[in-house]
C-alpha cells in the first residue's frame, strides 16, 4: 500500500487556480491599454517599459538569491513582472532608462523584499517606487509629452528613441503638462478652474487617451475594459473600484457645486490622472489591501477621498499614489475592524442569544 499516505488530509479536491494564473490574468487585462499607449507614445515608451519590467524581474531574482530562496518557482508567479508593469505605467513615457532601473530597486528591493517577499509587503511596490522617484526626481518625473504615435510624422524612430531613453535627450518642444497639472498650475497663477479647464483636452480625448500623461493615466476606456475583464474573471470584485471612483466623484461634485471657480468637477476627477488605473489595478492589489469586502469598501473610499484631497490641496497634481500608500498603512487596522460576523455569534463574538422561541 505504498501509495497511501496516511498523514495526508482533506480536502481531496482543489480549485484549479494558482497565484501564477491570477497574476497572468491581471497582465492580460492590462495588455490592451498598454499596447495602445505604447503605440501612442512610440519607441521611447517601449524602451522604458521593457527596461522597467526587465529590471523588476532581475531585482526579484537577485533578492530571492540573496534570501536563499528558490528563484525559478518564485519568478514564475509573475508578481515581479506585474509590479514592474504597473510601475512602468505610472512613469512619464519618455523618462530616461535609469528611472526604470531605480524604480525597480525601490519597488522590488525596498518595498517588497525588505518586508519578506511576496505577500508580506505592507505597501504597494509600484506606488512606493513612483512616490520615491517623484520625490527624488521631480523634474524628470513630471516631464510629460504629447502623444507621438508610432510611425506618425514627427514621431521618434528607434534611433531617436535610444537617444531619448538612454541618452536623456528629450527635445524641449514636445513637453506638455497633464490636465491635472495644467489646471493646478493655472490655479496657482490665479486663473480659475472655469477658465483653465477650457484649455485641457476634452473629456472624450481624456477617455480615449490622446493626451499627455503616463501610460496608465491615458486611455481610461481601455483600462476600464481591462478592469471589467478582471471582474468577469472574478479576480477582483466591484467593491474597491466602485468605492474609489464613487468617493472621488462625490467629493469632486460636491466641492465643485460649492465653488466652481476653485474646484474641478467630479467627472474631470474621474477621467483624469490615474483614476481608472488606480481604482481597478492599484487599489485592488491583494497583498496591500484588506481581505474582506467590507474592508475593501472602506479602503477604496479612503483612497478616493485622499486622492481628491491631495489633488486639490497638496503640492502634487496627482495624488493617487500617495493616497494608496496612506491607505496601505491602514490596511491591518481596517482588517481588524471589518472581520465578518461569525456564524452563530454577534459582531462582538459572543454567542447569539437564544430567542424566545416561537
Amino acid at each position: 500500500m505504498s501509495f497511501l499516505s496516511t498523514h495526508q488530509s482533506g480536502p481531496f479536491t482543489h480549485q484549479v487556480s494558482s497565484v501564477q494564473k491570477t497574476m497572468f490574468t491581471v497582465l492580460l487585462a492590462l495588455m490592451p491599454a498598454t499596447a495602445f499607449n505604447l503605440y501612442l507614445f512610440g519607441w521611447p515608451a517601449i524602451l522604458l517599459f521593457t527596461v522597467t519590467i526587465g529590471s523588476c524581474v532581475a531585482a526579484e531574482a537577485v533578492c530571492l538569491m540573496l534570501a536563499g530562496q528558490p528563484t525559478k518557482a518564485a519568478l514564475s508567479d509573475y508578481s515581479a513582472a506585474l509590479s514592474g508593469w504597473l510601475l512602468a505605467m505610472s512613469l512619464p513615457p519618455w523618462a530616461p532608462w535609469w528611472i526604470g532601473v531605480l524604480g525597480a530597486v525601490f519597488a522590488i528591493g525596498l518595498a517588497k523584499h525588505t518586508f519578506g517577499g511576496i505577500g508580506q509587503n505592507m505597501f504597494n511596490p509600484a506606488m512606493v517606487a513612483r512616490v520615491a522617484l517623484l520625490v527624488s526626481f521631480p523634474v524628470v518625473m513630471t516631464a510629460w509629452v504629447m502623444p507621438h504615435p508610432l510611425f506618425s510624422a514627427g514621431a521618434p524612430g528607434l534611433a531617436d528613441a535610444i537617444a531619448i531613453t538612454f541618452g536623456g535627450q528629450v527635445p524641449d518642444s514636445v513637453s506638455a503638462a497633464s490636465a491635472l497639472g495644467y489646471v493646478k498650475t493655472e490655479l496657482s497663477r490665479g486663473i480659475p478652474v472655469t477658465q483653465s479647464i477650457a484649455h485641457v483636452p476634452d473629456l472624450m480625448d481624456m477617455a480615449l487617451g490622446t493626451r499627455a500623461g503616463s501610460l496608465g493615466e491615458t486611455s481610461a476606456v481601455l483600462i476600464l475594459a481591462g478592469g471589467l475583464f478582471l471582474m468577469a474573471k472574478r479576480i477582483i470584485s466591484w467593491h474597491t473600484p466602485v468605492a474609489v471612483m464613487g468617493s472621488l466623484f462625490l467629493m469632486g461634485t460636491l466641492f465643485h457645486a460649492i465653488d466652481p471657480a476653485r474646484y474641478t468637477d467630479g467627472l474631470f476627477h474621474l477621467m483624469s490622472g490615474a483614476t481608472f488605473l488606480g481604482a481597478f489595478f492599484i487599489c485592488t492589489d491583494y497583498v496591500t489591501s484588506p481581505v474582506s469586502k467590507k474592508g475593501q469598501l472602506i479602503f477604496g473610499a479612503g483612497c478616493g477621498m485622499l486622492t481628491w484631497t491631495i489633488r486639490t490641496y497638496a503640492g502634487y497634481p496627482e495624488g493617487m499614489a500617495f493616497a494608496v500608500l496612506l491607505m496601505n498603512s491602514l490596511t491591518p487596522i481596517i482588517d481588524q475592524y471589518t472581520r465578518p460576523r461569525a456564524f452563530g455569534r454577534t459582531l462582538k463574538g459572543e454567542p447569539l442569544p437564544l430567542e424566545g422561541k416561537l
Partner: protein
Amino acid sequence: MKLFPIRGGIHPDYRKELASEKAIVALPLPATLYIPLQMHIGAPAEVLVNEGDLVKKGQMIARSGGAVSVPQHAPTSGRIQAITQIVAPHPSGLAQTTIVIEADGKDEWAELPEPIADPFAADTFAINERVAASGIVGMGGAAFPSAVKLSLGTLKKLDTLLLNGAECEPYLTCDDRVMREYADEIIDGARIMAHALGAPKVVIAIEQNKPQAIDIMTKAAAAFAEIAVVGVPVQYPMGSERHLVQAITGRETPARKLTADIGVVVHNVATARAVHHAVRFGRPLVSRVVTVSGGAVREPNNIEAPIGARVADLIAFCGGFEAEPASLVNGGPMMGQPLPSLDAPVVKGMSGILALTAAEINQQPASACIRCGSCVTICPCGLVPVEMAAFIRKDNFEVAARLGVMDCVSCGSCSWVCPSHIPLVQYFNYAKGMINIQERERRKNDQTRILAEAHTQRVEKAAAEKAAALAAKKAQAAAAAAAKQKDETPA
C-alpha cells in the same frame, strides 16, 4: 417554500455523474467480515461473544458501552473467528479491537425483536429504545448515535425534523440512490422519527442537482401533509447541519448551542431508512449503501455492503483500479478522511470510498499567501482563515481561538479555494487538537489546584480545631482550677 441564503460556500467540481445512474447493487457476501467495536462517536461497544461462537445475522455481538454508544450486530451468520486488533478506517491508522466473523454463507437471520405494531401509538421511549438497540448511528458521516439525538424531543420543544438529503459532497451518490430507490422507506422512517421527537413538521432538503430524487421523494411524501420536500441550492457546504437549518428555517443556531435549541433536529435520509427497518422489522443496522467512485476506480458504483466488508472487497467488486490512486478516501473529497489501508472495513458512517487520481485532487505545493481574501469571502462560518492561519503558524493558539477557530466546521472550502494552495483546514484541525489538549491540561491543573486547596484547607481546619481544642482544654483547666480555688477559699 421560501428559502434563506447561507453565507459563502463554493462550487466544486461535483463529478457525481460517475456513479449517479448506477442502481444500488448488493455486494456478494465476503468470506470474512471485520466489525470494529467503535464505529461511532462515543464509547466503544463491549464484546458479548467468544472466539468460536456461532452467530446469526442480526445477533448482537457487542453491547452499548455507555450513555453515548451503540451495540454492534453480526452482519451475517457464521463463526467468531477471532477478537483481535485490526486496522480501523481512521486516519491515525491505529489498530482497534475488532470482531472477525467467518461467514458460513447461509446468511441466516437470528430471531429478531418483534416489529413495533403501531409506532405512532408507541411512546418516544419505546422507539428510542428500539433505535438504540438496533445500533443506528448518523449515516451521513458523523456517526453520532441516533437514539441520543432522537431523545432530544423530551428535553427541548421541537417544531421540525429536518431530513438531510443535500449530499453536498462531490462524488457521493449513495443518498441520491437511496432516495430514488427507497423513498417510501425513508418517508416512513422520517414519520416515525418525527413522532418520537414530537416534531409536528418534517422537511426533507435535497440539493437541486438531484432532480429525480426530489421528484420521487415529493411523490412519496404527497400523502402526508406534514412532510415538505424542498430543493435547496447547490452550494457546498449546504449539507452542514447548522447551515441547512439556516437555509430552511432562516434561524441561525447560536454558537455552542444545538440546532435542537432552536427547535430543529437534523437526521440523514439513510438514517431514516435504518429506523424504518428497525421499527417495522426489528432489523438492526448491518449493512449500508456506499458510493465507490473516483477516477482511479474502473467501474464506480453504489453498493449495499454488509458492515465489516473490507474496502478491498468493494474495490474488487468495482473491477479494481484503473489507475494507481493518489489517495484513498473514506467519505467525500471535501471532508473525508484518508483511508489507512485497503484492509480497513466498511463502517456505519462510511458514505463513500473514493480512489482519486492526482489530477482529480490537484494538490499543489503551498506557496506564500497573497492575501487574496478568497478564503474570507467563501468561509460559510464567517471566519477569517488567512488571519487564523497566520497565528497558528506562530503557535499562537490563544489568538486563533479568539478569532473563532473552534467555530470552524472543517468544511475545507478555504483550502479548496486558496490560490496559494495553503492547507488551511489542516492548520485549523491541528489548532483545534492543540486547544483541546491545552483545555484538558488547564482543567487538570484546575483540578489539582482545587484538590491542593482543599487539602490545605483541611490541614488548616484540623490545625485550627486542634488549637481550639487545646485552648478549650486550657480554659477548662483554668476554670476548674479557679473553681477549686474558690472551693478552697474559706467562706
